[in-house]
């Protein structure tokens, strides 16, 4: 890898100031993302952020880079298309738990087994924020929300475990209360060749009064602080992914370097599709017609 010229965080200062509620966890993610991009020296023009719909999905509007603020639940699919269309871009998907683990879970799982080279940051506030506080796929069992006044009857989804059994090659978890740590996770994810998931505890200060900053501050510990832990062992990673209680792990659960989807595409070996000239070369057209004579 060529030597990196780091960029100051200001390089990514967006045209618009974030309109999140004061204290929203997403501010931390925005900051960490800028730090990470800066450290990797990614020019804004080479950074493509793709999001769905939700408070968290508004992030691309608040950073100086290309962005597609797509449909609720479709960000990963749009991002896959963009990546295959121009794999010269650093494609980062930023969205919410409802967006990614609810309506978007199909794309999430299938993108992972493809190991396409995308970084996926999920601002997991365990609630539907933009729609004012209904249960999300990660809302804790029995929690009361606007859509579950009696308490949530469903087991929350375990995104880390899903990622581990679905073939993601970089699986991590961050916390908005730890922006520096998260910046390292994001930098690692973007640098990683393959599908990288970063599930982030990003508290919704307005609608989730349970999973708050204090809730996580008291509980989170860093996997890297545990010598016993090896981020190359799926079994170990799976065990830790189920840890939820007094201690909750953050950091890199799993990391593995294997060929990415783009490697399997002969056409992409000639460089980004978008830079390849249009039209068929030489006698190809005639060869195609021959088949029908």
């Amino acid at each position, binding site marked *: 890898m060529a030597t990196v010229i780091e960029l100051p965080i200001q390089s990514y200062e967006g045209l618009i100031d974030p309109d999140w509620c004061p204290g929203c966890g997403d501010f931390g993610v925005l900051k960490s993302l800028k730090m990470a991009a800066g450290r990797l020296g990614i020019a804004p023009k080479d950074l493509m952020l793709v999001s769905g719909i939700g408070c968290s999905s508004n992030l691309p509007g608040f950073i100086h880079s290309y962005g597609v603020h797509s*449909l609720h639940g479709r960000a990963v699919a749009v991002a*896959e298309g963009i990546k*295959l269309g121009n794999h010269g871009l650093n494609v980062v998907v930023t969205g919410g738990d409802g967006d990614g683990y609810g309506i978007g879970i199909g*794309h999430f799982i299938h993108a992972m087994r493809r190991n396409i080279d995308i970084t996926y940051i999920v601002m997991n506030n365990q609630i539907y924020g933009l729609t004012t506080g209904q249960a999300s796929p990660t809302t804790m069992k029995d929690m009361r929300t606007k859509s579950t006044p009696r308490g949530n009857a469903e087991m929350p989804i375990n995104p880390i475990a899903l990622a581990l059994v679905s073939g993601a090659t970089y699986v991590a978890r961050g916390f908005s209360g730890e922006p520096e740590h998260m910046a390292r996770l994001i930098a690692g994810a973007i640098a990683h060749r393959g599908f990288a998931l970063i599930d982030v505890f990003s508290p919704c200060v307005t609608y989730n009064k349970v999973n708050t900053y204090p809730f996580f501050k008291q509980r989170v510990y860093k996997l890297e602080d545990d010598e016993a832990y090896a981020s190359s062992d799926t079994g170990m990673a799976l065990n830790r992914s189920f840890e939820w209680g007094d201690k909750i792990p953050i950091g890199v659960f799993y990391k593995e370097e294997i060929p990415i989807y783009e490697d399997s595409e002969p056409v992409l070996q000639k460089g980004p599709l978008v830079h390849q000239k*249009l*039209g068929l070369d030489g006698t*190809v057209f005639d060869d195609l*017609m021959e088949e029908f*004579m």
Partner: protein
Amino acid sequence: MRELTVGIGGAAGDGLDKTGDTLAKTVSRLGLYVYAYNSYQSVIRGGHIWLRVRLSEEKVYSHGDQLNVLIALNQDSIERHAPEVNPGGAIIYNSDKLKVDPVLPRENVLTVPLPITTLTKQFGKVQPVMQNTVAIGALVFLSGLDFDTAAEVLADTFKHKGQAVVDQNVAIARAGYDYSKENFVPLGYEWSFSRQRRPFLTGNEAMAIGAATAGCRFYSAYPMTPATAILHWMANHADQCGIVVKQCEDELAVINLAIGAGHAGVRSMCATSGGGFALMTEAIGLAGMIESPVVIVEVQRGGPSTGIPTKTEQADLNQVFGASQGDYPRIIIAPADVTDCFYSTVEAFNLADKYQLPVTIISDLLVSEHPETVEAGALVGNVPIDRGEMVTEWSEDKGPYKRFEFTKSGVSPRALPGTENTIYVAGSDDHDEGGVLISDVFTSPPVRRKIQEKRMRKMETALGELAPPTLEGPADAQITMIGWGSTRGVIVEAIRKLAAEGITANQLHVKYLVPFHTNEISEILRKCKRTICVEANYTGQFARHLRAETGITIDDHIRKYDGEPFEPHHIVEEVKAILAGTVKSTDVTLDEAREMAYHYIRTRLSETLRPGAISLTTREGIDERLWSVEVVTRDTAEKSGELLIGIESGSTHSWRAAELKQGASG
């Protein structure tokens, strides 16, 4: 004009398609024109398949009305199609397995029993499909085709399997040829073979090649009949054509990947049928909103819902028109034949790029899956490629780049992600010129009004460059036949037949459904004497669309929604009925009653029975006239039950025959 229609009937897995191919390729190479249509079922093995191959010295536009030679691969096919064979024709079948009840064929129809086992035993182990090859040999002799050419085609078809297989197949065909030569007189067809080479391909293949030729670099899909063939073609030619072909987890992914690729700047396409398209609609609105080009092919099949997946219909126009919420710019094109499929696809890519919007090509099973001979040189490789207004470089001193600039044409010059100094966010939330959301902190009604006007302005601009439809045929014709999509060819042929009967008709065929040439079409129709709209659906979706766009009410309608395509005679008969002022009846005809009985017998009774005599009757307690259909045993023809089918309702009133089946639970 000399022509011949061969019908091949059998079951899925009998290898009909291959046989049809061999025949079609053979006559194509001889310089004849071919039009084929395969009526098949949604089942992998079994079922009833009915392939018609029409050969002619001049171009033909449908599979026609005739049946000259029947190649029957099973008993059902003989029973159901033998009576359709025209006088002077022939019925070719495997006499070891099948037999032709003498009452079935009409006058002067030659029955050609082939003792397949005897004819093929010399070639060692022969697969059942080889009976087809024997039949081809017989057909070639009887219809005066050229055996050597057939042998050539067989050779090309099997060469990848080695010379031994080639020789065996050629020899087997030869056996059929020689045997017929010894035992039958040819049907007396005199052909002049131009031996002009012309491509013989389907609409799906034409769209796929059209895309590749237009520079499509990304194709995503999820298999769905009748669009799957495009995926297969793309997958097989991906490397050759430099296309990334991606099968996705569902159609939601398919369209969103295609839009992503299009947004990144590559020409991208996807294809599906009605059910898959339903899942794509939300994203099509997204493409309209973020102004990213994408081409979607919707190949219609019989609906609603899963419907009749292997049958043709034109009933998805409402869906394609109504795709996604809100008003947004988009283009909808309906190709009429194989050549049109090719050029419509090329055009779709240019329009998508120039106007930065989704273009939907609405095809149907008939135009997409039927193969036909296209004129030599009709399809060319050097097509125009126009990517529209692009911003390839931008300097800050021009001020910030405005991705959605409010221009007169409505088209805002597009910079691809990665271009220096053109950073922007493309949002599905509405936004201002610079891409900043207006739905968020501070919705500004006037900004909203102006961006909506800017987007929609593109429709007028686009309409300006689309060729308006023209009236074909005598301006003063008695009637004007109006159609869209796949019906053009059959209408052309119906008009010729009508002319032969002294009825003059002209034709208005509409290709661009959105935007619509309201003025030009109104202009044309105002001058027409009597308008008749022909379409393959129940509610007349196109007639409604035309009225919505022009206010013009079409006088009469010819509609078909039973899954089988129009044949010229259907249109001719209905036109005559319309002119005669007879109201169309929806009663069940005798032939239909027989088909209904077949359905009932095959699904609920047994393979050993078939419909027998059919007569009119009434019954105590049933308040409609009935068809009484005898159910008889196949071989002995002895009566073993009766089915009562309501003439008006089509209901099967009596289920007594059901008792015949063991364990049947009704």
